[in-house]
């Protein structure tokens, strides 16, 4: 009798493993950057190509780095949420226009609204590579010491903002 239950038990274990596997997104690769200093970069501003922004300028502030592009479909899904969030003026949001034409990027912001305090351009995707970006949009939460504390892979959703990002921002801003 006991022996007959063994295959059933093995099957149950298998079902549990498969069920867990199904709920996970294979595209969400754990970032090795959490808890590590944000890579330094310096890049021209999207709206004023003559000026540059550098990650060092943000030391002492908690800030969001949001990668986006005019060609990115998922960014449109995320955009209204960022627009709403920007209105609360919780923290500076810096946009990284990833592998985009400057003119297209500016047009996109003019059309859908600009939630960013400023956007910098990453024409050849070099900054993206340094941040381990493998699909836009990706969003990094960086603390006062310049350490990456959280990474959102894919669009920032209302749930992620409410349940994970906002509580973490409050804690970091203390």
């Amino acid at each position, binding site marked *: 009798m006991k022996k007959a239950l063994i295959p059933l038990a093995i099957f149950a274990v298998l079902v549990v493993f498969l069920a867990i596997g199904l709920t996970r997104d*294979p*595209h969400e*690769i*754990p*970032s*090795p*950057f959490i808890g590590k200093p944000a890579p330094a970069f310096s890049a021209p501003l999207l709206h004023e190509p003559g000026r540059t922004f550098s990650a060092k300028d943000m030391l002492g502030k908690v800030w969001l780095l949001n990668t986006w592009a005019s060609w990115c479909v998922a960014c449109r899904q995320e955009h209204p949420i960022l627009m709403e969030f920007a209105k609360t003026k919780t923290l500076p949001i810096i946009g990284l226009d990833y*592998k985009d034409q400057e003119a297209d990027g500016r047009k996109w912001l003019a059309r859908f609204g600009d939630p960013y305090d400023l956007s910098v351009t990453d024409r*050849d*995707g*070099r900054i993206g*590579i*340094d*941040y*381990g970006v*493998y*699909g836009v949009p990706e969003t990094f939460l960086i603390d006062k010491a310049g350490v990456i504390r959280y990474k959102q892979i894919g669009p920032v959703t209302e749930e992620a903002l409410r349940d994970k990002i906002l509580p973490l921002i409050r804690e970091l801003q203390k």
Partner: protein
Amino acid sequence: MKYWLALFLALQLAASSWADEAAPLAEDPVVEQRLIGIAEELRCLVCQNESLAGSRADLALDLRREIRTLIKAGKTDAEIMEFMVSRYGDFVRYRPPVNPVTWMLWFGPFALLIGAGVILVRLVRGNQRDAAPKVLDAAQREKAQSLLKDPELPS
């Protein structure tokens, strides 16, 4: 004849455009050889079942360009591997390092194999015990005899 000539010219044209496209490969065969060697060990983050060497994804293209630059800058293979792992994590390697997180991955199949072996040995031993020859007692023998002699049963 005219058609043959046209076909010939068209093929010539095709051949020359082909040679054009392949040019970057021949640029520096040593660098390309090393690039392929490294890129085959790396996973393309966009198409996860493709290697970085084989993928046509945009990011793979950029990363190959990045590796090419690193090779030309005189970095060793280990340094280039480190460059990739520090950005994308161990997942980017097709052969992840052995550490507590990956023990399950490296040793899990062997543990399963050993477990299956143990179960197999136990089952076989159990069967052997059950299959030991049994001797009939007197009553059973008599019953068997009577069944064998029964004229009613088809022989």
